[in-house]
């Protein structure tokens, strides 16, 4: 059974007098544990699709099921809880709360989930160690490099125990070395934690790490193929 099922997803919005089709006729199934990349040129609809999957934006048509839940019909408060328990997010930039340390940033989502403070702390420490940030846990984001900040975001996304992690161009602001390191971490944890990853990118280095590449163009899926991983 697929973890994520999209059926007939379309997204239209108005831009002045014009109606723009950001997405149309998107049918997609993603199985548990997949490490999939959404690729395509700028404006192809990658971010819009991720936002719809993540319940951040509503589709104009079609249905989205994640883990058996039809998120198209969820109310505002239910969507908050849905994102909290089912999803992890890694954004392109501004991923962390500036007034919280790396450790507190990772704890935040677990605290929101209602987990005990000690449990949240232990899990946060564990995941920060996994992403190689054991020595900078107490630092605030402003004292971390871009690569370190993204790794904190990955730790935060995974520590909360989501079914699916959505990453929108996670390496866009990173140099080659940091980008490769981050992708390696994401890939490793995806396998170890059996967590599904969908990330958007137009970075060939990232595509190279993906096990499945879904290509979007003008709001439509133009190809969906498995990719042989080099590692």
């Amino acid at each position, binding site marked *: 059974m697929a973890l994520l099922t999209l059926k007939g997803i379309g997204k239209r919005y108005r831009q002045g007098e014009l109606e723009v089709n950001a997405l149309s006729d998107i049918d997609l199934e993603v199985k548990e544990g997949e490490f999939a990349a959404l690729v395509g040129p700028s404006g192809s609809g990658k971010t819009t699709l991720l*936002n719809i999957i*993540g319940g*951040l*934006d509503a589709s104009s048509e079609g249905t989205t099921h994640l*883990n*058996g*839940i039809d998120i198209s019909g*969820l109310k*505002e*408060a*239910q969507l*908050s*809880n*849905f*994102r*909290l*328990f*089912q999803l992890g*997010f890694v*954004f392109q930039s*501004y*991923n962390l*709360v*500036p*007034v*919280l340390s790396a450790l507190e940033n990772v704890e*935040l*989502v677990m*605290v*929101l*989930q*209602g987990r005990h403070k000690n449990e949240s702390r232990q899990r946060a420490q564990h995941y920060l160690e996994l992403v190689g940030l054991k020595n900078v846990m107490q630092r605030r984001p402003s004292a971390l490099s871009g690569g370190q900040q993204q790794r904190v975001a990955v730790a*935060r996304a995974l520590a*909360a*125990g*989501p*079914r699916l992690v959505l990453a929108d161009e996670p390496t866009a602001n990173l140099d080659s070395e940091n980008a490769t390191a981050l992708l390696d971490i994401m890939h490793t944890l995806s396998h170890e*934690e*059996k*967590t599904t990853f969908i990330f958007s990118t137009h970075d060939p280095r990232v595509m190279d790490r993906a096990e499945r590449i879904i290509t979007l163009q003008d709001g439509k899926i133009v190809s969906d193929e498995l990719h042989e991983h080099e590692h």
Partner: protein
Amino acid sequence: MAAQPDHAQLDHPQKSHLPFWMLLMLAWRNLWRHRKRTIITLSSIAIGFGLAVLSIGIGDGSHNSLIRNAIKLGEGHLTVQPRGYIEAPANHKYLANGLLLSEKLEALNLPGSIEPRISLQVLSSTPSNSVGAALEGLSHQNDPRVDMLKPQLVTGHWIEAGDLRGIVIGEGMARKLKAKVGSKIVVMAGKKGGDSQAQLGRVRGIFKSQVTEMDDYLILSDTQFAQHFLEGEGADTTKQPVTRFAIFLDHPDTLYHWKNVIKTMVENKDVIAMDWQEMMPQLVQFIAIDDAGNYVFLILILIMVVFGVLNTVLMSVLERTREFGLLRALGLSRRSLLMLVFCESLILSLLAIVVGWIVGGGIHLWFSQHGIDFTAIMGEGGNVMMGSFMDPIIYTELSWDRVTQLTSIIFIVTLASGIYPAIKAARVTPVEALRT
């Protein structure tokens, strides 16, 4: 370990909410994110608060000075007198059995003093002139009015015990009658039937109180001197008739307690007990109008505070739109986001109260000890108004009621200023916020 699919989680009301400790921690840190801005806001609130405290303190200090002097110069905190006297004073309206009433009042053992007084409308004459006057027969040993006027003597001396002819007059009356110390003044009063009666008084001293009504019209004598006129009205002097008892309380805050006690004890169809506010309604009205002016000043300060807080919190909200989008994307509920921003206003308002009281309280403490000298504006005698006068050196005064009132107003206004930014923050939609 991934979370299990659980539809119940979606409707769980407790989830997506920040626990209170984290709410406070985040709010506190957010507040100090722009240290300078927060300090400037707090400073402006503290200065505004200080000015409000000073303004209210001066207002209350000057009003209380006016009230204290009015009570001392006037009829005390409480007055027991014939019913209907205040509406239409007349010499034939008196308390015939002053002795009995005096015994009843003394039996109360109230902390303060009870002064018998006889007030009469008279005509005072010298060979040079005649003027209408108010004769006040009072006890010269204890009466606070004597304590107030004795230092104001400009010539002569005060009436001594057993001096049944001695009178003290104001400078205005002395000028009109061309009288000086030692002059004889004929004091004449009309009787109820239409006849008149007269006594000869001798001027022992002349005072200058700065209160024109007193300087021009007041004649002070011993009670016995004045009692002769009541005798002419048919009073039995063995029952020590008086016009009123002026009651001075050591603790003015017990006024309403004693008023009730005395009313219950002495009031009947002929006798009434009144407090100073009922006796001097013009003074109460004047203070109310003056207070209104102070409130206008307070409102201006509050507007300054509102804009200060609104500016700080709103700026901080607008700057953090993306951050709020992130928090909402991660699963933070709208309510928690609203509470977070509101909590920032709460902390800001609590800090503002603390800093405000440090500044305002400090200013008040200084001026309550050292006073503010208004001699240059008022002159040596103070500011005369409503039959009383304000001391030229004003000591700020703040009652606990005022402290509570000011604290509540500043707290509520500061907190209310955070409502709009909090609502604005809660309205952030993640997808739009993350695009910014």
